[in-house]
């Protein structure tokens, strides 16, 4: 499974060939490095392994003392148990819907804003862009109380609107796309103009398709952050039917203290989309998350 991952910042082929030559005198050092890495990898991966092993264990196995590390007989009962203990299927759908809407909306609003900053005349360009960047520095937790009051006041507590409204735009997304749009070749843009493409058509027919990689990176990043949200869904929702998967998981933990198997099965279910993103979209994750770290 992990073999499908792409190496971030993979060096060019000739350089890699050079790196592969192992110096004989460093063979001992190499072995030490190997052992260290292996020990670290086992430690880091143990929780991942245990989640999947434990999810298939029988209750008596997982509760055994000392705990079993390998399931003796595989059971799927934990999964059906987890799905019935809390409305996990509904909460799964909520999470997909909420994260999907937030992702689509942020891509749309960020594309428009970035386009305005790069391709349209704007008298107050600098201060307005400064305001967009300033939104990145405000911790969400310091404005969470008024937002809760606002949305409850509008009667949007415990609704999908309440879950998504504050996250429909993003200073980070605008920043990322502006960086990318600025590198768009002027000749291509002029050519599109001469061929009669107005702003709207140039934006959606040429600019957006040609910026697919950065849009994908942004989409992966936004989806993961929205999928992982905890504080806001916790306070804005009241019923289990409106809660997202992350809140459902913590409810599962609270309601089934005696049965870790159910909890781990719930975690396995919640991991499926993000695990797929990490395994198949690592390239995009790195690109989306390291903007600013690596030029």
């Amino acid at each position, binding site marked *: 499974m992990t073999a499908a991952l792409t190496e971030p910042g993979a060096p060019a082929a000739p350089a890699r060939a050079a790196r592969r030559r192992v110096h004989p005198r460093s063979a001992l050092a190499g072995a030490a490095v190997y052992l260290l890495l292996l020990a670290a990898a086992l430690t880091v991966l143990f929780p991942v392994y245990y989640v999947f092993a434990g999810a298939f264990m029988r209750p008596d196995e997982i509760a055994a003392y000392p705990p079993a590390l390998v399931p003796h007989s595989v059971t799927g009962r934990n999964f059906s148990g987890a799905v019935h203990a809390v409305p996990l299927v509904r909460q799964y759908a909520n999470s997909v819907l909420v994260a999907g809407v937030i992702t689509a909306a942020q891509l749309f609003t960020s594309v428009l804003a970035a386009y305005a900053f790069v391709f349209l005349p704007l008298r107050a360009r600098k201060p*307005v862009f400064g305001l967009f960047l300033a939104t990145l520095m405000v911790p969400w937790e310091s404005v969470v109380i008024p937002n809760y009051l606002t949305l409850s006041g509008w009667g949007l507590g415990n609704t999908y609107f309440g879950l998504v*409204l504050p996250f429909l735009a993003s200073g980070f997304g605008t920043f990322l796309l502006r960086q990318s749009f600025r590198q768009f070749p002027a000749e291509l843009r002029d050519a599109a103009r001469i061929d009669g493409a107005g702003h709207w058509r140039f934006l959606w027919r040429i600019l957006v398709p040609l910026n697919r990689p950065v849009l994908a990176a942004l989409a992966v990043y936004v989806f993961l952050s929205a999928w992982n949200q905890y504080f806001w869904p916790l306070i804005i929702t009241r019923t289990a039917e409106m809660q997202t998967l992350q809140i459902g998981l913590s409810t599962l933990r609270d309601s089934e203290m005696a049965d870790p198997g159910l909890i781990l099965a719930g975690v396995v279910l919640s991991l499926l989309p993000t695990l797929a993103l990490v395994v198949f979209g690592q390239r995009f994750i790195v690109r989306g998350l390291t903007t600013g770290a690596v030029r």
Partner: protein
Amino acid sequence: MPTAPPAQAPPRRLGEHGLAWAFLLPSVAVFALFIGYPLGRTLYLSAHANDLFGAPSRYVGLRHYTDLLASAEFRDTLLTTALFVLLTVVPGVLGALFLVLLLESRIRGVRLLRSAFALPFAFSVASASVVFSVFYNPASGVLNGLLSQFHLGPVGWLTDSRYALLSVAASTIWMNLGYNVLVLSAGIGSIPDEITEAARLDGASGLRLARSVTVPLLGPSLFFLVVVSTVNALQSFGQIHILTRGGPDGSTRTLVYSVYQKAFAYGSSDFGTASAQAVVLLVVVLACTAVQFGALERKVHYA
């Protein structure tokens, strides 16, 4: 207007200005409603006492702030927050740096190992915290199970106030490791091969290469990671809510968690005090970003 020369005629310019604002409007509206206005309202609430239902009742000026400063509980909260930042950022960044440097050595299977270290990234804060709560379980958890193999007594990982913050920090380090490794790997990948090869030709290898070439050139990535990790640690909430609820004895009550407790937990609606704490959080986050930029940026080497 198909072949009109771009951006010359005045009416069209006017239209373009309008279009620019129309394109900015959705984002600006969201920011104004959910960041700008609430910032003002947080300040307003922090200067007002409130009734039992949270409605602001009368102006009290800086009373909430002076009360907070005078309160031993709040000083504990600040100390816990600082400790939590230190306990997660320092080992988190150094551990990732160590792993990434090891991954740079010329051995087989490095790509597979790097991917392995990135896997925790798939866990949300909630799912990772739930898994660690199973690990930390005093009676049936794997950790105490392992200790018992060595005839060591059970540890109250989350129930003993000496260990609770450490346990929460340890699980947080695990959650962040994948991201930290990804960022630093990308940083190393962007160091030009000629530089490392030149250093190797000059006889630098192993520790020497890492100390004199790789780590200095990783400066921008490390800098970015320290800033991001600090701000993230200051905002940590899910793991505390799931693992300890701020306990035992408030030993894991950080600033963000305290805001939550005052404003939302168990039907509490003390929005005045909570808002004052939210303002403190805002100031701390902004100050950390500013200090780190000021102090660290001069030491960062740009390749």
